[in-house]
Each structure stands twice: as C-alpha cells, then as structure tokens.
C-alpha cells in the first residue's frame, strides 16, 4: 500500500501545473475546485497511508535513483513512517480546509490572480509534502527550499504594494541564512557518514560517543536551518512581517505547516540531537528565549495578525523547548494541536478582516460578537485552546512540554509557565478588544458587518472541533490516559528514548505543576477580559509598553548592526573597488590599446612613396646589419 505514497505529492503538483498554466483560461470556480480537490485527494491517500502505517507497514519507498556519484548514492525515496504520516495528515488536512476557506476569502481577486494564488498554494503543499516525505536530507532540502520559495511568492502575492514585496524579500533572505546552515550540515554529514539517507546516518551516528564534536557541529548547523525556517531567535523577525500575505496564507504557511519544518527536521534527526546534549541545551535555551520574547511583544501589538504572528513565534519556541529537553513526542504533539488552533485563529482573524473590509487594527474593532457569531465562538475556542485551559488540546501538548522542561530544570519550567501566562493574557486581550465591548469602527463598516460565507465558516467549525478534541490522543498517564500518540510515535524515537534517562516526576508534583500553570493562565484570562472588554487600550503605549510595541527595537537593532554596515561595505566596494579598481584596469587596457593604435595609424599615410621609402630604408638597414654587425 505504501507504494501509493508518490500520489501524495503528485496531486498538488498536478494542481499547481493546471492552475498555473491555465490561469488565463480557467474560471474562478473551476480553479477553486481543482485547487482544493487535489489537496483532498492527497488527504485521502494520506489517510490510507496513515492506517497502513498504523497496521505496521512503515518503510522507505524508493522511486528512482536520483544522484549516484562514486560511493555516494542518494535515491529519490520517500520515508513512510509514523512521524511522516502524522505530518502528512496535518499538512493535507489543514491545507484542504484552508484551500476551501480561500475560495471564499479571495473571491474579490480577478480570475487570473485567483488562479495564481491557488497555483502557489498547491506548489507550497507539494514542497511541504516533499520535505516531510523525503527519506534523506537532500529530498528534505528540496522541499525545504520549495517552501521558502512559496512563502516568498505568497507573502509578495499583492506585489504592487512595495512594503509587501519588501516583507517577502526579508522572509526569503532570512530563510536563506538558515538554509545555508542546513546545506553546510548536509555536506558535513556526507563527509562524516558518506550518505544522506536517514537510515544510514542514524544507524552510523548511534554508534558515536555522546557529545562528539562532529555531531555537535552538525546538529548546531541543522538547528541554524531550523531557526530560519521556524522563526527562532535570531532569525525570527521575518515571520511577523510575513503577515503581508493574504490571511489564509498566514494560516497555512506561517502557522500550521511551513514553520513547523524545523521542528519536523529536528524530530526526524532526534537521535543526532540526543547524542549531542550541548546542542540540546542551546535548542532549549533559544526556544525558551524566543517563547518569552515573542510573548512580551505580542502583549502590546495592535494588529490582529501581528498578535497571532508573535504568538506563533512564541509557540514555536515552546516546541523547540520540548525538542531541547528531549520531549520529542511532546513537540510533535504541540505541532499538531498548534496547527489546529493556530490555523483556526488565523482563519478567524481572516473572517474578521473580511467582515471589516480589510481593517486589521483591533483598536478600530470591538463588539463583533453579535455580528459574527460563528467566528466569535470558534475564535474563543481557539483562544482557550492556545491558553492551555483543559480539556482543550493546547493544555495537553503544552503541559507535556512543560512537564519535560520541569524534569530537565526548574528554571525552564518557571520561565515556560511565565510565557504561558503571557500567552493567555495577550490572546484574551486580543479576544476582548475584538469581540467584546462597543464597536469602534466607522458607521459604514458597522452597516456592512456580516458573517462570512459558508465556505469560510465550515472550515472554522471543523478546525474548532479539532482544536477542542485533538488533545485527547495524547492524554498523559497521570490523568488516566494512555497517550496514544506516544505509543504511535514510539518507533521513530526509540533510539533516543533508549539513550535518555528521564527521571520520572511523581504524580503529585505533576498535578501541582498542571494546577499552577492552569490557575495562573485562568487568572491572566480573567484579568485580560475584565480589563480590556470595557476599556481597551486605544492610545499608543508609553514607557516600557512602547518598547514592547516596537518589538524591543530588534528590527532597528538588526538594521543598525547588520544592514547598515553591509550597505556601507557594499557602497565602498561599489564606489572604490568596482569603479576605480576593476573599472580602472579594464578601461586602462582599452585606453592603452586605443592610444597605441592612434600612434601607429600615422604610419598608414596612404602615400605609396612613403611606404616604398620605409621598405627601402628597412632593406638597407638589414643589409648593413648583415654586413657590419653580424
């Protein structure tokens, strides 16, 4: 059955080709049907594969020889196992819902651009599937680059706006910095293990010593790749700017799928990371720092999408914290629940923006509860889920990561809970300012307020249900569950689990940890709702709030430390080295030839007599030389 796997990426590729090539001819409804239909087909195949894997048929499917040089053999092969099948379901499932949602959200575009949009989305899904399915680092890298490209294309979808194209370029360049790390790591792996296939690399690596220098180097470089793709310090600033793209794109790429590529890659290479505790420490600290930093920024943002963007960065930080403390299952679990509730929140935000005629500033909203009942309820579910209130999904996944963090270090746990409290606070600040209180927009907007069409609300409802219940596949033992996800994923992480020595936390401690984080989050929620539903912050923040509103001035800092000096150097190279140095040499050679030929030209007078005279004189000279000199 797993031989069917090639169909999973093939369908979106076909969709991309049809929509991309036929964009001038296809009608809008046909484009939407093709665009969403191919993803649905992929989803169905993914479901078949999932149950196949569940029945125990995991393995590598080799399609053809891709690169074969000397001893290095890189086949074009797909890895069908527990980890990739879970990701396949998330990508195609959430992807399909977002495609359906897009058919309504983008209906104002003309058919040409509409088809271009769906072509990009299909190409994105194709790349992401390639990334997840690849059975070696090269195939993964192809997908890795593909999603970066699609991200660029979709952020800059409204390319007539200069700010948007700049945001697209920023995303692309920052991703490239990370890709550079990934590429170096891949070469290092070839040099060290002589293969890029996961199976070979992992089996070879598991024989190496703990904290081997090479392994630490490789994992750090891979992690650099992950920070670029998954928006971690120091490469996170592209993600909030990426909100320039259409909102469904933000939901699909910048919340549910692409940004989880880094998590997937590290979870896939878990054995390498387990063998390099130094790197794990770095991963955990960076993840935690990102989680906290992004959460503080999110508190003071006023753009509905920016709040969600920073919350994504923050949640990704939690996932990295989970990876860093060895809770690979927890990280994957959080990827899944986060995909549901963050896609839900973004699509809800899209619905609000749609109703408000492209107004994104929450200070100009308020009281949307009545006008948008479905959006309101589903958004609220998303907020509760992300805040980590049981029994919604976010609670289980976040709790698992925090518990693992506690067993690694109490400091991790304290900071993690602080971040979780901030998450609850800013999410409900957003919720209260947007949906509660009085409407603060213009009369015209109030007049046109309307619930979104079915194509938008149905995905919201489906995602809300998933966000609410998906946590139950990972109920930990302490709460009487059996954590089915952990059992399912166990074969993938078996090698790492064998090496880890987790000290079990006793159940009472765990109850206390849960209670503390839930209670604190609940207090934050109540405080935020009571404070912002009546009196939202309408003015620009002052004092420390201003620093947060301006994102700790990190963009300005990067500008001053990296961009400006780089510009200076390039200006110097352009004005001095290029103009004077290289141009001088090139032009100088030309000028010498020109001058020389102008002097020599004087000999060519055209006077026959002069030529003959020269000939005679020269002959005489030769004669004299012959006679007297030699």
């Amino acid at each position, binding site marked *: 059955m797993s031989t069917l796997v090639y169909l999973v990426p093939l369908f979106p590729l076909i969709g991309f080709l049809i929509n991309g090539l036929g964009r001038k001819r296809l009608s809008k409804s046909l484009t939407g049907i093709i665009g969403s239909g191919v993803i649905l087909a992929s989803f169905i195949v993914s479901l078949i594969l999932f149950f196949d894997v569940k029945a125990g048929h995991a393995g590598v499917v080799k399609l053809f020889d891709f690169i074969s040089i000397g001893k290095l053999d890189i086949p074009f092969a797909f890895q069908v196992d527990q980890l990739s099948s879970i990701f396949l379901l998330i990508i195609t499932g959430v992807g399909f819902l977002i495609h359906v949602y897009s058919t309504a959200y983008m209906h104002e575009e003309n058919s040409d651009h509409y088809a271009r949009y769906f072509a990009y989305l299909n190409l994105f899904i194709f790349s992401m599937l390639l990334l997840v399915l690849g059975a070696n680092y090269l195939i993964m890298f192809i997908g890795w680059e593909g999603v970066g490209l699609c991200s660029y294309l979709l952020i800059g979808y409204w390319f007539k706006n200069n700010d948007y194209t700049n945001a697209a370029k920023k995303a692309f360049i920052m991703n490239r910095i990370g890709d550079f790390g990934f590429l170096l790591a891949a070469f290092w792996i070839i040099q060290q293990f002589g293969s890029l296939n996961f199976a070979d690399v992992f089996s070879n690596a598991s024989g190496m010593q703990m904290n081997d220098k090479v392994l630490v180097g490789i994992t750090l470089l891979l992690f650099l790749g992950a920070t670029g793709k998954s928006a971690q310090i120091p490469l996170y600033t592209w993600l909030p700017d990426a909100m320039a793209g259409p909102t469904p794109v933000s939901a699909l790429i910048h919340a549910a799928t692409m940004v989880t590529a880094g998590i997937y890659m590290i979870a896939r290479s878990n054995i390498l990371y387990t063998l390099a505790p130094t790197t794990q420490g770095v991963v955990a600290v960076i993840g935690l720092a990102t989680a906290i930093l992004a959460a503080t920024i999110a508190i003071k943002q006023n753009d509905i999408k920016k709040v969600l963007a920073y919350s994504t960065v923050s949640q990704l930080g939690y996932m990295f914290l989970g990876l860093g403390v060895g809770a690979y299952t927890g990280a994957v679990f959080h990827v899944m629940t986060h995909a549901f509730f963050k896609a839900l929140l973004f699509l809800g935000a899209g619905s609000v923006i749609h109703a408000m005629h492209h107004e994104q500033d929450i200070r100009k909203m308020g009281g949307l509860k009545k006008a948008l009942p479905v959006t309101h309820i589903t958004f609220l579910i998303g907020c509760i889920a992300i805040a980590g209130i049981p029994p919604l999904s976010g609670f289980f996944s976040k709790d698992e990561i925090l518990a693992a963090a506690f067993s690694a270090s109490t400091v991790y746990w304290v900071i993690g809970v602080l971040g979780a409290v901030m998450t609850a606070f800013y999410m409900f600040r957003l919720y209260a300012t947007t949906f509660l209180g009085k409407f603060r927009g213009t009369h015209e907007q109030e007049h046109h307020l309307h619930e979104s069409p079915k194509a938008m609300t149905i995905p919201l409802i489906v995602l809300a249900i998933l966000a609410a219940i998906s946590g139950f596949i990972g109920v930990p033992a302490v709460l009487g569950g059996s954590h089915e996800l952990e059992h399912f994923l166990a074969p993938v992480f078996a090698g790492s689990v064998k090496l880890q020595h987790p000290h079990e936390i006793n159940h009472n401690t765990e109850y206390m940890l849960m209670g503390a984080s839930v209670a604190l989050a609940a207090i934050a929620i109540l405080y935020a709702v009571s404070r912002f539903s009546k009196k939202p912050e309408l003015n620009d923040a002052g004092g420390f709030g201003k620093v947060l509103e301006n994102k700790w001035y990190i963009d300005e800092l990067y500008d001053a430390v990296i961009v400006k000096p780089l510009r200076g150097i390039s200006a110097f190279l352009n004005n001095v080295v290029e103009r004077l140095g290289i141009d001088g040499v090139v032009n100088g050679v030309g000028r010498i030839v020109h001058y020389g030929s102008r002097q020599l030209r004087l000999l*060519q*007078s*055209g*006077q*026959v*007599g002069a030529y*003959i*005279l020269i000939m*005679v004189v020269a002959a005489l000279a030769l004669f004299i030389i012959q006679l007297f000199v030699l």
Partner: protein
Amino acid sequence: MTINHYIFLSVALFCIGIIGVLTRRNVIIIFMCIELMFNAVNLLLVAFSKMHYLAASVVDPATTAGTDGQLFVFFIMVVAAAEVSVGLAIIVMMYRNTHSIDASFLNRLKH
C-alpha cells in the same frame, strides 16, 4: 672586363631604379623603374653564373656549374612578363577610374 664592372653597372642600374621609384609619381615611370631593378638583378645573375663557370671549367672542362643562374634569369623574365601584364592592367583600370596615373592619387584608402 672583370666581374667588378658588371657589379658596378648592376648596382648603378638598381640605384637608378630605386631612386626612380622613390621620387617619381607617374605610375608608368615607377613601373619602368621596377623593371630596371629586375634587369639589374638579371645582369648580376648572368655575370656571376659566367664567373662560376669559368672558374670551374679550368678544373673540369665538362662542368655545368653556374648554369642554374642563367636558368633563373629566364624564370625571372617570365615572371616579370606576367607581372607586367597584371601591372599594366592595374594601371589601365586606375586611369579609367581616376583619369590620372599619379600614384599619390591612390591614398584614398586612408579614410
């Protein structure tokens, strides 16, 4: 008549030819001067060939030394005849185009 007389005559003819080529602008005269130089060389070849023959025949009366010089003269005359026909044709064409046989008229290739 020693060989020196021939050499002096031939050098004189050659110098007249060169000076004529250098100083005159009439193409036909230049042409005639070139012929003069040819013949100066021919004269020298014949003279040296005879000299070599005389020197060798003292030792061996049946020698053929020096005859190749005479043969060369014939070759030069044949080639010169061919060259004359080409040269004269060029001069005719030149006259048709410029109505002049002044060599300094032909400096137009310069620009």
